């Protein structure tokens, strides 16, 4: 399957110009810039990285879902115009997806990385951790913009679309972890490690958290699922498995969104 045809590349370049000029995108980059800078000023690079991880796991999915949903609403008539050109739906879908996701991921990466570059990170191990954080935030962007495409494909009403997007964020970034914890407490007397592993695979935010905390090697903050992951797979293999699962979390919604996009009426 050819993902980036010349036509898709054209669409992406113009979408980059469109999205790149959005004030919300600038605000998003500025947000991470200010937060990362403040964290670095008030603590060392290691503490700053940990706190930035929590912020990333919380904010990136929210912005990807909400910005993605608004973007797709705005792009509706424009989509119609582009589909009246000699462009296939697959090409346009890929163009819209990358045109939305790349600038968002870039804004996050730039905002989070620049303060570290300015303040300087001496420890090479911390540099790797920063790179892993940037990669995980990037992956989460790809996952949650894909989910925004799925929401756009299956929810017709504009308001309900936004509601669904926010609910999806609430579940994956806030509620899911709590539910897992409740479940773990209720079933504390049973061997539930495998189930916990399964539950972790079911939430991309948890997967990203596991990857980051295994990388940072801070078991105190790893939470239940992270601890189980480490116990089961050890650091490196755990990271590899969680990364693969996260990649699946990109592929599946993208494929689902594409299927709906090809059948849909404009």
């Amino acid at each position, binding site marked *: 399957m050819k993902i980036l045809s010349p036509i898709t590349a054209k669409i992406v370049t113009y979408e980059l110009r469109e999205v790149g*000029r959005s004030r919300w995108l600038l605000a998003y980059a500025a947000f991470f810039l200010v937060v990362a800078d403040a964290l670095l000023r008030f603590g060392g690079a290691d503490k700053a990285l940990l706190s930035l991880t929590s912020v990333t796991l919380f904010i990136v999915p929210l912005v990807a879902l909400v910005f993605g949903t608004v973007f797709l609403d705005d792009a*509706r008539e424009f989509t119609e115009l582009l589909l009246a050109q000699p462009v296939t739906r697959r090409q346009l879908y890929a163009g819209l997806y990358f045109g939305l996701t790349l600038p968002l991921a870039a804004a996050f990466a730039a905002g989070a990385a620049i303060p570290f570059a300015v303040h300087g990170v001496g420890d090479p191990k911390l540099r790797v951790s920063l790179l892993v954080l940037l990669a995980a935030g990037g992956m989460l962007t790809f996952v949650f913009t894909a989910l925004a495409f799925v929401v756009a494909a299956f929810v017709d009403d504009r308001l309900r679309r936004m509601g669904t997007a926010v609910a999806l964020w609430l579940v994956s970034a806030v509620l899911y972890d709590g539910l897992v914890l409740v479940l773990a407490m209720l079933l504390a007397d049973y061997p539930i490690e495998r189930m916990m592993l399964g539950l972790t695979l079911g939430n991309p935010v948890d997967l990203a958290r596991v990857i980051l905390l295994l990388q940072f090697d801070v078991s105190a903050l790893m939470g239940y699922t992270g601890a189980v992951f480490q116990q089961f797979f050890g650091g490196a293999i755990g990271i590899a498995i969680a990364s693969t699962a996260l990649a699946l979390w990109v592929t599946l919604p993208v494929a689902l969104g594409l299927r709906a996009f090809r059948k849909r*009426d404009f």
Partner: protein
Amino acid sequence: MITISGLEKRYGAQHVLRGVDLDVRRGSVTAVVGPNGAGKTTLIKSILGLVRPDAGVIRVDDVLVGDDCAYRARIGYMPQIARYPHNLTARELLAMLTDLRQAAPGAGPIRRDETLVELLALAEQLDKPLRTLSGGTRQKVNAVAAFLFTPELLILDEPTAGLDPAASAVLKDRILAERDAGRTVIVTSHFMSELEELATDVVVLLEGTVRYVGSLDELLRRTRKTNLGRAISYLMTEAAA
């Protein structure tokens, strides 16, 4: 130029197109008329492949719609509502459409016809972000985009809606020029007088079926009416009775 047979489309419980059969002659200006909700826009969008019909076959120059997108290189389309990306300028938009046509497989050299930019007095507006333009100005950009690549087939959905009289006149003159050049035009409008000026053929859509197809003169003779508006309302009351 276009052959449609047995076209069916439902939106949920709404049965919008109920077996539409239609031929659009090459070189005709075909007006699609009918009351609101008769399925005009759905029909047009089906030809463009924007709406996926539930049943039926559409061919544009013997190319089956739905298989391939290359046939759309020969179509210029003016949608009913002109909404564009907020931050792009009109110049960038037109450049983008040009790029897309150039990147299409088998595309020849592309010549742009920008005479409408002058005629619609758009030159000043080309470098402003599209969101800052008024609705009428955006509709003009829409018109420029549709006529930009001298397409063989023009599909115009309410082209003069929102345009001032001067711009409307420019657009109508352009449609007539296209007709004289042998191009095919499909047009919808709520202004019957406008369609009388332009159309060679008329398609009357009522409740998702083709009620009449043929020349304007024949329609007037058959309904014994003096103008298109009265002929249509006659057909509508006849259908209701």
